[in-house]
């Protein structure tokens, strides 16, 4: 029983990475009806930017420029990296997606894929093939709750990602910009006639998605402090599948599916040999999609998409 609870905690943590990344895929899809195949690599870039910012702040603190506690450095790292990574997202939109908005949709998928390869290779070329380790910013205390060991890091990761998901939900539901996004997802041919610029909204969508990917990257770095240039591939493609599983363009769906994927992976590894993890996880996803072709919260194609 304690074993089960232990794994639930692990699955929540693992799933929150997927959920945060899946949100980026889902938002872009709902607005532009395009897959952003570079998103997994934006997650990787976000993690590296987070590493750079964190290392810089730690070095400044050590040099005595200012004295900041570890948690404050982490908060600053998250905020600064979100800001910086959103520019990466906007750049990707400008280069790979805006020139292709009227092209066949598959062409934009190819540019996304290629930008992803460029980001990976660029990273390899700049930083080399060695893995770098993320500085440990917060002390991890382990709590023993009835035989279940819970580290403060894990709680922090789950809470922070849930906070960001809730914030995004509120933003999309309440703010004027969120309304513009929902309108654009509703009909991106008519809404520009109402004076909403599709370029601005698309850029903003990419920026928000990338910022969330950066959060996921930093949290990943906190949990598993080893970064390598190809981490985006593994996570990105799975999160992409999760985004689809949640229903195209549905924020709730993407979050839920992300957590579900985390649960499936952790529990498959718990019961079966871990080499079977991908096989069983994807088979389950395939089965769900066979019976629910539009995902959890998606609507049929003839109907509108929702955000």
């Amino acid at each position, binding site marked *: 029983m304690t074993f089960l609870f232990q794994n639930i905690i692990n699955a929540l943590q693992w799933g929150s990475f997927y959920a945060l990344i899946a949100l980026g895929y889902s938002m872009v899809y709902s607005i532009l009806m395009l897959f952003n195949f570079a998103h997994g690599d934006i997650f990787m870039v976000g993690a590296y930017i987070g590493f750079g910012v964190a290392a810089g702040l730690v070095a400044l603190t050590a040099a005595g420029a200012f004295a900041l506690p570890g948690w404050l450095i982490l908060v600053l790292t998250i905020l600064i990296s979100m800001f910086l990574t959103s520019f990466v997202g906007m750049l990707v939109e400008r280069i790979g997606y805006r020139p292709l908005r009227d*092209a*066949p949709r598959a062409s934009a998928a190819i540019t996304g894929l290629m930008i992803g*390869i460029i980001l990976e290779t660029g990273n390899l*070329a700049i930083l080399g093939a060695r893995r770098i380790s993320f500085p440990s910013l917060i002390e991890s205390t382990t709590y023993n709750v009835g035989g279940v060991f819970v580290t403060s890091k894990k709680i922090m990761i789950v809470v922070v990602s849930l906070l960001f998901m809730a914030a995004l939900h509120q933003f999309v539901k309440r703010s004027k910009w969120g309304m513009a996004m929902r309108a654009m997802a509703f009909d991106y041919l008519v809404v520009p006639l109402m004076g909403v610029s599709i370029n601005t909204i698309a850029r903003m969508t990419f920026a928000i998605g990338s910022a969330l990917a950066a959060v996921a990257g930093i949290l990943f770095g906190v949990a598993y402090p080893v970064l390598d240039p190809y981490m985006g591939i593994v996570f990105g493609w799975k999160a992409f599948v999760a985004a689809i599983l949640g229903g195209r363009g549905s924020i709730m769906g993407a979050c839920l599916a992300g957590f579900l994927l985390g649960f499936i992976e952790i529990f498959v590894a718990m019961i079966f040999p871990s080499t079977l993890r991908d096989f069983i996880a994807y088979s389950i996803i395939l089965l769900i999609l066979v019976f629910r072709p539009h995902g959890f919260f998606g609507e049929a194609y003839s109907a509108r998409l929702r955000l």
Partner: protein
Amino acid sequence: MQEAAHKTTAFRRRIADFLGKIPLLAWLAAAPLAVLLEHLIGYELATGVGLPKIPVLFGFVIMLKTPLLIPSALLYVLLIYLIPVCLVAWVLAAPANWLAGRLYRLPIIVPVLVHLALLYLALHLWADISAYRGLTLRLTLIAVMMTLSLNVINGYMGEFSCSHPGFMALGAYGASVFSVFFFASDKLFGEALLPEILGAFCFPIGLVFGGLIASLGALAIAIPSFRTRGDYLAIISLAFMFIVKSAIENLEFVGGPRGLSGQPNYASLPVVFGVAVVCVWIINNFVRSTLGKALNAVRDDETAAEAMTVNTRRTKILAFMFGAFWAGVAGGLFAHVLRYVNPGTFGIQKLAEVLAMVYFGGLNSVYGSILGGVSLSLLSEALRPLELFKWIIIPLLLILVMIYRPTGLIAFKEFDVRALIRPKTHPRKEV
């Protein structure tokens, strides 16, 4: 200023006239002669102009490795390939036109075979110079097959399939297990069951076996995914690709993640060339058939196609299985060329490669697939000395192509063999 522009147009027209009068037959006759020249004096010429050895890929590799040798490499290419080919083609233009005219009146199969024989002769002689050339050439032909079969699905059918590496893996493992099980003594499957002498003749059966397994896999995807429209296939096929890769990694009897080796050396250049030609021929006929036209109709407007009595679901499933079959055959060849397969080969990287070839060359066109497969595989070999930067240059090139020609370089063009081999005595009439 104006005069200069006038001059360039006149020059261009002259070149066009020069090229317009030479039939394909003359070019194909000139190519083996140039390669023969390389056989005879290539080494002497290479050392004469200061190159360490005969440049393997038209001097690209040498130029990138040691930029100082660029003039010598260019000179070599000019002297061995460019000038002799152009010269011989020009000299042979008149007799070749006469011969092509004669052949043109015979049943189409005769001139096609003559052209293919000349092409094969040139390629064989070219590949004879070094083993590296032979390997590159075979892998290029396999890439063309892969590209063409994916084009059937992504171009002619207009879906977005991500499972081609999966089909390739199924074909590769199917064909490998077939030939290793029956014709090779091996640790995994024990003694050979049949005499080894039969193996080379049964190799086509193995390839077809691999292809059939791949198309069975395609059927498994196609049944659920063609119930709805849209991007559904992209996701299901992506999941399928990961499932295949992961399943093979867990199957101990084919070697698991270590891979399967010990395939006999059946996939020599003539075999690969033959299979590739058959593949191009059959796929070209397929896309020009009623079924192929129905496929285009389904892509352009599924409802309208349905109204025109096209059974859309059946058409899509058939085409999908057809594409997967050829991917499986290409995979079988791939396994026998390298004589080793492991599941790691058939992942996202392979997917990106094949998709890039299809969209670079051009959707909905056999020419485009041939161009995409050949150019990208040769380019990735030629840029090898750049190491990492290769993977920045090639994606950048693709992004540019996508921005300026979103459907690829030669898209929506029919591959017309008759137009290709006709004699060029008269200026081409517009149809």
